[in-house]
């Protein structure tokens, strides 16, 4: 099967999980993505409260946006002792706050530091792709973030 999403063409039989593809070469480090994310999640602004990161390297010569990959082989999901982390029907890796006990094992085993304990609830939180319409992607003025959705079993309805 061949399908096209934005500018990327993928030839693959298997369905892929939706994810945000980052283009560090286009990132200017402005953090507008993080401001949009924190606003969507918390109703206020602070990049530290967002669920993506920008790692500034070498006197700001490089800005590396880092997002949750919604991994095919998600370590966070595997290490969770209470099965609070699961992939939903759209392929998005989600955390059930009711089940989460705040043990932070998922935090420990995420290789890109994209799960944190929420500062208020002390439960694990991560990017869950904003109900299928990521605020960060919409806000980026430079095209450094791209939302990739493949042939998933169930299409995401935007709300």
């Amino acid at each position, binding site marked *: 099967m061949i399908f096209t999403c934005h500018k990327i063409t993928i030839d693959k039989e298997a369905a892929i999980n939706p994810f945000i593809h980052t283009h560090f*070469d286009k990132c200017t480090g402005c*953090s507008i993505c993080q*401001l*949009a994310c*924190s606003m969507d999640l918390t109703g206020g602004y602070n990049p530290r409260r967002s669920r993506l990161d920008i790692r500034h390297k*070498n006197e*700001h*010569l490089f800005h590396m946006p880092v997002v949750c990959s919604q991994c095919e082989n998600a370590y966070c999901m595997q290490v969770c002792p209470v099965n609070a982390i699961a992939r939903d029907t759209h392929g998005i890796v989600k955390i059930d706050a009711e089940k989460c006990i705040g043990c932070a094992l998922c935090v420990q085993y995420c290789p890109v530091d994209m799960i944190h304990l929420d500062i208020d609830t002390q439960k694990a939180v991560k990017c869950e792709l904003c109900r299928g319409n990521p605020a960060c992607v919409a806000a980026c003025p430079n095209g450094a973030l791209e939302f990739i959705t493949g042939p998933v079993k169930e299409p995401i309805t935007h709300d």
Partner: protein
Amino acid sequence: MTDAYANKFLTIDLSNGSVSILPVCDELKNRYIGGKGFGAKLLTDGVPSGTDPLGPQNMLLFMTGPLTGTSAPAMRGCVVTKSPLTHLFLDSYFGGSFAAEIKYAGYDGIIITGRADRPVYVWIDDDRVEIRDASDLWGADILETNLRIKAELADDTIKIADIGPAGENLVPFALIGCEFNRQAGRAGAGAVMGSKNLKAVAVRGTRLVRVNDPKGFARACATALSELSQSPDIRALALAGTAASVEFASETGLLPHKNFTYSTFDKAAKLGDKGQAKHLWLGTNACMGCPIGCAKIGAVRTGKYKGMVTDIVEYESAALMGSNLGISDVRAVAHLVKLCDLLGLDSMSCGSLIGFAMEACQKGLIASPPGIDLNFGNVAAAQHLIQAIAFRKDGPGALLAKGVRAAAEEIGGSAPDLALHTKGLETPAWGPRGVSGMGLAYMTGDRGGCHQRGFTVPYELAEEWEGKKIDPLSPQGKADMVIALQNYSAGTDTLVKCDFGTFGIKADTYADLLAAATGRQKNADCFSQTGERIWNLTRQFNLAQGMDPCSDTLPRRFVQEPLPDGPAKGHKISESDMAIMRKAYYTARGWDNMGKPTTKTLRRLGIEP
């Protein structure tokens, strides 16, 4: 009521190590909005006349505005203090992410007084404030200090403002470095920090900045973004920052060349965007929350300075450290500017001083240092002087480290004729002889001769202000324009806006952003009104600090020497031109003929006479 203010200042007295919280009262918010307004009011109330700028009584204020830290595009912060260079009001603005972090830590500003008995840095982690020993950091450059504090606190996301050796050595044009390639650059805020034995302020904030009306705020942000994207000026800045101004200024006869003797430079293209794009730039490095990204970032890949990461050589530095010194190798200019940034010197004042020294040497007023050929075009001489100034080395270093006004007075003879400054602040890189309104802006700037307090150049070159034709060379019709620009700039410096944002974002939109953020009724006029209040308050501050109104003047070169080149060749701003502009300006401001705000004017603006 939710508003975008943190509603408190953090006050730190370094003399006794005490830390306290000062609430931000409604009256301050209503009358002064934030940023420059807050700083002007706090400084006027807290720094009595005669205060030594480098004494413990001087206040060092890091101020944010109600829109700092929000998604309102292109917002910054400012440092406000009494300048050791001009002995007047100083507001110095910085982009990057330091100002937003102050807000996220839960403060509208940080008020620092006193003097620590040993080198220290302040570590602000939300509510937790710690004064830590910085003895080991003393002597380290701006970048090294930043990285070592992050290592010590084990978090490279902390935001830091710090000084280099020049600030420690109290050079009166030392700057404060704010998170890589951003500086509170002009008129010596870094020396004030050094005088307090304060090496750095490190901040980590986890609080949220909430706006009063999120939906209305999102709409206003969308309008602002759309205005930015539709502005040709903004598109040009996004492509090439202010580097494109080098060729423009040379073509229009505004570029300083050889200590402002000339106004054009035949190698301008090498210093401007074309030269920089070829030799330096790799990508864009935007300030926090800014969609424009006027700063290009890159590296010197080849030659003597290879391996060096460099930010864009913005116009002022490219001109004052490049064409002004007769240097056209942009890699060498990037190297000199970076040296200033690392040692913590304002590259504008420094470039101006080196140009002064080169001309003074040419005219036999000072001698070249041993082994150095102090001539225009000599990169090694410029490098030598930068290092000598930062460390106040015996000879020209210690002399120039006093600033151009004091250095010229000390040399004596005809040296003051070569000193380009107004009220002690070295002249920015826009020679005013072809645009007399810019001259008036320098004459009347509240922090001394500054281009950012009323930038008339685009209007004068277009020969039009608010639908009326103006002649760039004439002294007529300039006062109203300069006053309007000064008021609006001061008013929006309360938010704290970036100057470039105003090229796209309209006053109505700033008012909508402010209203939605704070829940206060605001219209577009509030900025000019607040700006006028601030401008009179800073004038009162300066007069109380002993400013002589006769210093509302221009450097001799612009008054006595007609331009030898460029489109305005043969023109100067004569004594009588200055008198005409000054009189019209004082009258329109409601100031007496000695430049003092009248009681009636102060009452109208609600300022205590």
